[in-house]
């Protein structure tokens, strides 16, 4: 079970929008039921990152992240989704 942390500034808006897209991608690639997603504010990422397999955020990478970090801005802009999708799928292996 992969633990994925979804983060954004307030932990409410853009991380929710990204989450919907990320979950769709994971389910479409056969990972349904094999992951757990949690959302948080970017300020909480450093402290939480030790317990997650990777972080996807719509903001810049903060200091002190202890796990792989993926920039998820493509889920808002629609640009670069393929590249980010590949990064995510690679980390799911």
């Amino acid at each position: 079970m992969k633990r994925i942390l979804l983060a954004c500034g307030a932990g409410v808006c853009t991380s929710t929008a990204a989450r919907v897209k990320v979950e769709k991608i994971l389910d479409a690639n056969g990972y349904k039921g094999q992951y757990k997603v949690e959302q948080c504010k970017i300020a909480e990422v450093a402290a939480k990152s030790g317990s997650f397999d990777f972080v996807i955020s719509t903001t810049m990478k903060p200091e002190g992240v202890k796990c792989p970090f993926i920039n998820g801005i493509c889920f808002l802009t629609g640009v670069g989704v393929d590249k980010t999708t590949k990064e995510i799928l690679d980390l799911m292996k």
Partner: protein
Amino acid sequence: MYFDKEITFFKESVKNKEEGIKKLADEFLENQLVKDTFFQAVIDREKVYPTGLSINDIGIAIPHTDSIHIIRPQIGFMSLKEPVIFKDMVDEKNEIKVSAIFMLGLLKSEQQIDILQKLVDLFQDQEMLKKVIACTNIEEFKRIMKKANID
């Protein structure tokens, strides 16, 4: 329901992003949608985690803050006569010339997922986004939002 208070400004002239945010936040406060801590929280958050985004060469901003400042969910809209500078969400050293501000007063809940999804889909639809930015009155705006299934 997210636009029921019709907090919209079309082709507004503002000196800077703070003025744009203030105009929207004041309307939110007057309509009792947010606590009086909302405006400062949005400004503070914008400094640390900017909300400017450039999509298909169109600059938009989605200022918002923690849901504890929100009483009732609402989305406010302001199109700008002249673009206003916001910092880039992904690179704060980068400046985005913003043509439209969508102020998000949303709560932390499952109900928001749908509206957020639709907003993101709208942002990614270049034609629709251009129409929204070009519109000059609330009726036109509501028509476009209805088409995007956002109401």
